[in-house]
């Protein structure tokens, strides 16, 4: 429960940390870490501008997306049952469905482009996620997120490999789902990086605030998955891992460039490959006597 509350409070701290790291590396002083919170509050106070082309879908979509992301967090931290990770993935998909049709609702070529790219590039995340989680679950025969908390450890060679690979895979998922470099550039919506940012070009005020929050929360969800593998029980460990990952994303964004659009799909294939390797490793662990 504590984790869930933290999850609801921390998203903007996470983005704030990323931005601060980027600023420090590029030699700037940068905005305060809490800046995203100030922006968010300001956005909530504003009115909205909507396009005349849009229908009510445009207005309800950000709220639905927010509800979905929040409940996915609930599923991750509090509410465990057999097959919960399936519901987790599908509930995130529900949010995505609405954000996409909201983008298409504006009738803008830019937003259509963003929606089309976002949906294409994230299409491989779900399969990779399922292959990975169900492989890990198979070790302990618990088919829920609990298995991440309970089973994985560094006690064996094969298991530590699985842990490391899972962490890498989840980290890649943060970058893809959170639309960060090298998949997407969150700071611009210029033509070359027209993916996520351009998809929400027409949103403003409260809606934009909701979208920013959901997106940060989504990154934090995958980060929480990493922490639940690495430090399943300690809250302090949770915060430390969270800090490290935020800084890491900041460093990556400072030192690497965004990938060319045609290469992004190859990048997401890396994710599937890692998931398949995890499956092969668990196969070896269970049937090859590597424990």
């Amino acid at each position, binding site marked *: 429960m504590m984790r869930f509350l933290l999850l609801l409070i921390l998203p903007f701290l996470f983005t704030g940390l990323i931005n601060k790291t980027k600023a420090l590396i590029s030699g700037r002083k940068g905005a305060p870490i809490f800046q995203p919170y100030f922006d968010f509050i300001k956005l909530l106070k504003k009115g909205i501008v909507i396009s005349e082309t849009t*229908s009510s879908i445009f207005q309800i979509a950000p709220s639905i997306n927010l509800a979905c992301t929040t409940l996915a967090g609930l599923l991750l931290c509090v509410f465990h049952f057999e097959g919960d990770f399936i519901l987790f993935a599908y509930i995130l998909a529900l949010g995505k469905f609405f954000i*996409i049709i909201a983008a*298409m609702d504006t009738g803008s070529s830019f937003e259509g482009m963003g929606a089309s*790219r976002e949906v294409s590039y994230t*299409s491989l995340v*779900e399969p990779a996620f399922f292959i990975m989680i169900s492989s890990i679950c*198979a070790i302990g025969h618990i088919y829920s997120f609990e298995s991440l908390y309970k089973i994985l450890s560094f006690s064996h060679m094969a298991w530590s490999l699985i842990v490391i690979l899972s962490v890498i895979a989840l980290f890649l998922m943060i970058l893809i789902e959170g639309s960060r470099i090298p998949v997407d550039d969150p700071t611009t919506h210029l033509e070359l990086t027209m993916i996520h940012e351009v998809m929400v070009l027409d949103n403003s005020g*409260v809606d934009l605030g909701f979208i920013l929050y959901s997106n940060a929360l989504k990154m934090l969800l995958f980060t929480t998955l990493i922490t639940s593998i690495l430090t399943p029980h300690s809250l302090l460990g949770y915060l430390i891992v969270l800090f490290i990952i935020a800084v890491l994303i900041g460093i990556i964004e400072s030192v690497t460039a965004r990938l060319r659009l045609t290469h992004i799909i190859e990048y997401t294939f890396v994710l599937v490959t890692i998931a398949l390797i995890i499956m092969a490793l668990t196969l070896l662990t269970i049937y090859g006597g590597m424990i």
Partner: protein
Amino acid sequence: MIILLISIILFVFSSLAQILFKEKSKAITFTLFSGLATVLGLIPTTIALFQNKTFFKTVNFNGLIGNVNFVLDPLSAFFVLIILVISFLAIVYSRKYFEQYLQLHKKDLSAHYFFLGLFIPSMILVVTVQNILFFLISWEIMSLSSFFLLLFDNEKKEVRQTAINYLITMQIGVIFLFIGFILLTLSTNSLDFASFQGHITNTIFISLLIGFGIKAGFVPFHTWLPKAHPIAPSHISAVMSGVMIKAGIYGILRLLTFIEVPSLFLSYLVLFIGLASAFFGILYAITQRDYKRMLAYSSIENIGLIIISLGVAMLGLSYNNSLMAGLGFLGVFAHILNHSIFKSLLFFDAGSVLSKVHTTDCEQLGGLIKSMPYTASLFLFGSLAISALPPFNGFISEFFIYLAMLNGISTNNHFLFPVLIIAIGVLAFVGAMVLIAFTNIFSSIFLGTSRSEKASNIEKDSPKSMLIPICILVMFSLLIGLFPQYFMQVAINPANSLLPAPLIFPAQILLNISIFNVVLVITIVAILILRKVLLKNKTIAVHKTWACGYDKINSKMQYSNYSFSRPFLGFLTPFFIRELDFKGIKDLFPKATHFKSKTIDIFEYYLIRPVINFDKFIIQKFYWVQSGNVQKYLLYGLIFLLLVIIWVVKK
């Protein structure tokens, strides 16, 4: 059982009675009669289904074939329930649909209702009769009457061609059924289904699997489906896609009841067919710009999901993992039910669009949500349900399939393990593709601005009697999603009839999902209210869509159906063929140019076409036989008679 037979007779009677009524009252009298028949039929069906009872009726055809058994067990009752409910909704829907249609074309409806009145009881007979001969007869009536239903727009050449294609494909399917059944009767010496127990060999199973598969439309026997649906009247598409193709699934399931433990080979084969159907079905759905065709391809995908679940269940039986088998069969029935709900819903809705815009081409539509808000929101619900998103029913059945696979993983087998995990991956990828397909289709029909005159001149939404059947289906879809622990009880008895030991209904897991889905709905509503509160007394300005400073945006600049799917399809090119006809823009002062793209089904291109070409090649050699010369034909007759005489004399 008698009541069900009366209901069948009533359907046939109402179809014959069409001749007596006036043109205007045909639809309404047919609705009344079939409504009565539906209610009658539902009584024994629900009893059989929910109380796990089996009704028998033996009719004696003296001398000819002896006793013919009719059976209404939970397995049959499950299908009868779907047939009755969906068909009735389709009939209710058809009245206004035709009214609008008849304003444009002069047409006689009696033939249509006549065949509809034969089509529905023939489907009921298919799932209840327990005798090979009668099964095949009702199967043929089903195929033939649906053929005539397809021929509604028979003055169009394209419609006639497609209908003939459908008929031929169905006959090829029947040939396989014949082969299978002949082999069966050779080994059992009986026409009765009950005697098949233990006689189903792999050859028989595969032959019948192909026969039933052609009706069910799984890859690679699916090619008739995307052709037939766009030309059929929308409610017929709905019944065909939602109900009729399930008759094929019924055949396979009935076959399984005669097999104690399916062989590993068959189980893996079925799983593989399912995966291929799901993947290719939805891939081709993404490539389509004709929305009815797209829905047809999506049916192939959903049949694929059903077959995947069936494969998993069979694997569970083969590996003696009862939980996996149970959940697998539960997934089969849950998805059959759910698919018939949301697919009929979507086809009805597509018909509502079609009756207003008179085109099935998405690239000419857009912005319909403003002129047809009800149709649009119902379509949205249907899309959410078919994309297996909570809180709708599609998620529940997909969840069963995943759960069955996950439970299969713990079977201690090193070959099954990777197969199932990869199957989970494929299923998840298919899920992502469904999302692409349906966001694409929904936004290109309903969102943005209209791309042609046809879409911009709509005055009002479709009439109520067309929308109410859709609303009923949406309600079912939402209720099943919100309270699966009650509604999924429907699937437990038929699933148990296929299992060696009865499965305990997984109520706890469904209760969890139910709670979660209710919480989801509440949260969404709460956040929407919060948004409203936040926006109180704030300005809501309405402006043009922001186009980065550009002022003269028009509807042609929108992302179209083609462009939306382009980036995704880019990396799946080996799996389909796309013919492009585009000269490009040349010179300083470019001339008018055009762009045309056509997606070709690789199964049709590599599998069906060579067979047809070979056939043509052989047949061409015999053209000379049919010269049109009467004397020659008389000669053939003479030669034939001589041969017969020689044969008789010799004997």
